Structures are given as structure tokens and as C-alpha cells.
């Protein structure tokens, strides 16, 4: 059981800056994120796209913004729990007991939800029967490529993940690559390679096709794919891989007893607290009259939520407002020399 003054759910820009605010005012915190890396939507959705409305930063990419926020956190020792999704939040005496899907548990007076539009989950095949084979012979990511050796693998998708795996797996297995249109969106070099491999007969390319159904009783035997003109083709296959990107889902947050309206959580604008004392929601996931889904709004919301955390984490101390430019205490925390 990890005891902390505040637990932040979500390592996007809002969560990162809020961690900084908490450490500045002398609280400790830990951060949980379902993705395998820090940065949230900025890293997952638009690492290379420029952002023009961060105060005092005329232009930066999602990746640059993330790296700058990580650098800003350097003076502090903050534990990140990546690849973990918070499953359960339960009241236990005055604290919240928080559990992740990996079995990590936290006890904290403050839970800050900075979850964007929820956690990123792979987008799945639409035919219902696909679920039956999920994680047995149908996957949305590759954990161990050795299981495919010598087998037939049908890969769906038209982006980098689909193309990269088609190229890689074509060395050791028989590969079908299926995509809903003729154009691929990926690195040009990889696209060229896929076309070359298709010409050489190393990859069977099926474009303008989509998954229609999976067949097999206990084990997956074959799949039906459907052309835009409704023609159906049956492909014998041992494995199926789907790479349709990630979608954002609210997930378990919906079950924590919070006031939720259209995937957003209602908060007040003084502490950004939800209807549950000690649970805050900040950034894109929160909602209040006038809410703007801007990164800068997330920073402001986090700064105020951090002050509210102080009251619950240090009930016997008085919070004193200080500027980073003049406060000796803050400078000590930052590890910079005072004047």
C-alpha cells in the first residue's frame, strides 16, 4: 500500500503541471497512467502537430510540450505508474483507497482525475464473435512475435503499426494484409516495402476489404472479409491482428459515484472538486459553466485543485501563498540557490 498526499490519474500536460504545483507547495504525489509513456493525448494523438496557444510559447509540438513539462519536474522525485489503469476508488475512513489493474494500491486523502477523455483502449473489430478469440488468436497488439512463426497471420489496418508488423512478420510467417482502402497512411519507405513484398508474393494484399466474420469453433480457422462491392472472400488463418488505433473510453471512472454528464465530470470552480470530497477533476475531463478544453485551462484548474489538496493532506497546517521568485522554501524544494 502506497501512502501519498495526492494521487494523479493521467500523465498528460494537466496531470504533469499539477504534480509540479503539488510539489511546490510541499505535498508529495504519485501519477498513474494507462499508456506506456508520459504525455497523454499530446504524445498519443498529436506528437508532431504544432500547438500555438500555450502562454509564452509561440509554437511547440505535443512532444516538445511534454518534454518541457517533464524537464520542469526534474527537481522533484515523482513516481509514475505507467501501463496501469485505476480500476477502483473506495472510501476508507478519511482516505481514498485506490486500486489499479496491476494490483498497485494507494491510500490518499486526494485523488485528482486528469484523465482527458478517459483512457486509451485499442479500437476493436466490430463483429461480436471476434471477442471469443480475443487474446487467444486475435490480438490488438503484439507481445510475443514468436508465436506466429510458421503460421498464417491476417493483419488489419493501414497505419504504421499494421504496416510495420506486416513487414516484420512476413520474414517468418505467411501474411495477409487487409485494409479498407487502397491508400495507406504510414512512413513512405514502409509503404513502398509493403508493396514490394506484395509483388514478391511475401505479403497477400487485400485492399477495399474489411472484416466480415471470424470462423472456428474452439480454434480460429478462417475469416470472411468483405469487399466494398460486397464480394466475400474466405481466408484460412491462424491468427488475426487488428491495428485500428486507439479510442478514448471513460472506463471504470464511470463507476466511482461521480456526477458524470456526456463523458465529463461536474466540478466546482473553486477547488475543481467533484461531488465526492477529496476527488477532483481537471483538464478536458471536467465540466463547469464556461469550461474551455484548452491546455492552459487545465494548468489553472490543477493549480487550484493542488491548494485544495493541501487542506486535506495537512489539516493542521495553514497554507501560505508564496511566489516562486521570492520564496526561500520553494527555492529549497526546487534545489535552486536563494538570493
Amino acid at each position, binding site marked *: 500500500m502506497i501512502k501519498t498526499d495526492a494521487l494523479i490519474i493521467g500523465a498528460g500536460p494537466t496531470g504533469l503541471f499539477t504534480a509540479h504545483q503539488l510539489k511546490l507547495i510541499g505535498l508529495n504525489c504519485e501519477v498513474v497512467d494507462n499508456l506506456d509513456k508520459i504525455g497523454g493525448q499530446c504524445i498519443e*494523438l498529436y506528437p508532431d502537430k504544432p500547438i500555438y496557444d500555450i502562454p509564452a510559447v509561440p509554437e511547440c509540438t505535443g512532444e516538445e510540450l511534454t518534454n518541457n513539462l517533464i524537464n520542469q519536474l526534474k527537481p522533484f522525485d515523482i513516481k509514475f505508474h505507467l501501463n496501469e489503469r485505476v480500476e477502483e476508488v473506495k472510501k476508507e475512513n478519511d482516505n481514498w483507497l485506490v486500486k489499479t489493474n496491476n494490483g498497485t494500491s494507494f491510500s490518499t486523502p486526494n485523488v485528482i482525475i486528469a484523465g482527458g*477523455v478517459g483512457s486509451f483502449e485499442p*479500437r476493436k473489430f466490430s463483429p461480436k464473435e471476434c471477442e471469443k478469440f480475443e487474446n487467444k488468436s486475435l490480438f490488438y497488439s503484439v507481445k510475443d512475435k514468436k508465436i506466429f512463426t510458421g503460421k498464417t497471420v491476417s493483419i488489419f489496418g493501414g497505419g504504421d503499426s499494421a504496416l510495420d508488423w506486416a513487414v516484420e512478420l512476413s520474414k517468418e510467417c505467411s501474411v495477409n494484409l487487409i485494409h*479498407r*482502402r487502397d491508400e495507406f*497512411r504510414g512512413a513512405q519507405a514502409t509503404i513502398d516495402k509493403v508493396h514490394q513484398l506484395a509483388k514478391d508474393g511475401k505479403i497477400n494484399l487485400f485492399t477495399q476489404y474489411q472484416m466480415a466474420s471470424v470462423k472456428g469453433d474452439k480454434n480460429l480457422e478462417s475469416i470472411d472479409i468483405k469487399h466494398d462491392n460486397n464480394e466475400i472472400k474466405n481466408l484460412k488463418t491462424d491468427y488475426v491482428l487488428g491495428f485500428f488505433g486507439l*479510442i478514448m473510453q471513460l472506463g471504470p471512472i464511470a463507476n466511482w459515484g461521480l456526477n458524470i454528464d456526456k*463523458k465529463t465530470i461536474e466540478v466546482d470552480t473553486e477547488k475543481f472538486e467533484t461531488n465526492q470530497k477529496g476527488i477532483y477533476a481537471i483538464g478536458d475531463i471536467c465540466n463547469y459553466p464556461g469550461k474551455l478544453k484548452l491546455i492552459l485551462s487545465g494548468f489553472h484548474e490543477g493549480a487550484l485543485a493542488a491548494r485544495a489538496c493541501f487542506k486535506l493532506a495537512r489539516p493542521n497546517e495553514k497554507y501560505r501563498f508564496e511566489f516562486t521568485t521570492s520564496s526561500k522554501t520553494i527555492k529549497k524544494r526546487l534545489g535552486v540557490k536563494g538570493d
Partner: protein
Amino acid sequence: MAKITYITHDNQKHEVEVQNGLTVMEGAVQNDIPGIDADCGGGMACATCHVYVKEDWFNKIPKKEDGEEDMLDMAFEPKTNSRLSCQIVVSDEIDGLEVNIPSKQA
């Protein structure tokens, strides 16, 4: 102003007047039409405002720009008449547009 008909997957018709300049996605969100999530708020960074445009309208409305087709690869059950409704701007020319909303967005 344009009259736009949103047809949900259970065949419910929702007819609304949408102001010029808004997008078909915004018209749906502002009128509480179910089935258009628009998670990213119109930034073409998700595919949760996906609609099917009736064939006769599909060729009449402004064409897809770069990036929209890429995002549609990630939509739920995309078809040849799929569009992201955040990329269709409302004008007098599209008065009478009908769009079908998929059974789900994710």
C-alpha cells in the same frame, strides 16, 4: 440556415435547423442528437463524429481534405460514404442534408 436530418441507427429521424458556419457535428451536439460523441471537439483527432452521408448528397458536399480519410480508418464500421461530421460545414447549399449515425462510435 440549413435543415439537416440526422437518422440514428434505430431509424429515428431528427430534423433540425442548423446555422450556417457551424459544422454538422456541432449541429448534432447543440441539439442533443444521440450517437455523435465528438470526443476531440472538432479537431479531426478522433473518429467519434462519424456519419454516413446519403449517396446523392455525398458527391454534392465539399470533398474530404487531407487527414479525414486517415481518421476514418479508425472509425467504427467505415463505408464508402463515411464522413467525419466535424468536417462538413453548414451552408444554404446543404439544406436538406440527411446523415445516418452508426450504431456506435467506438
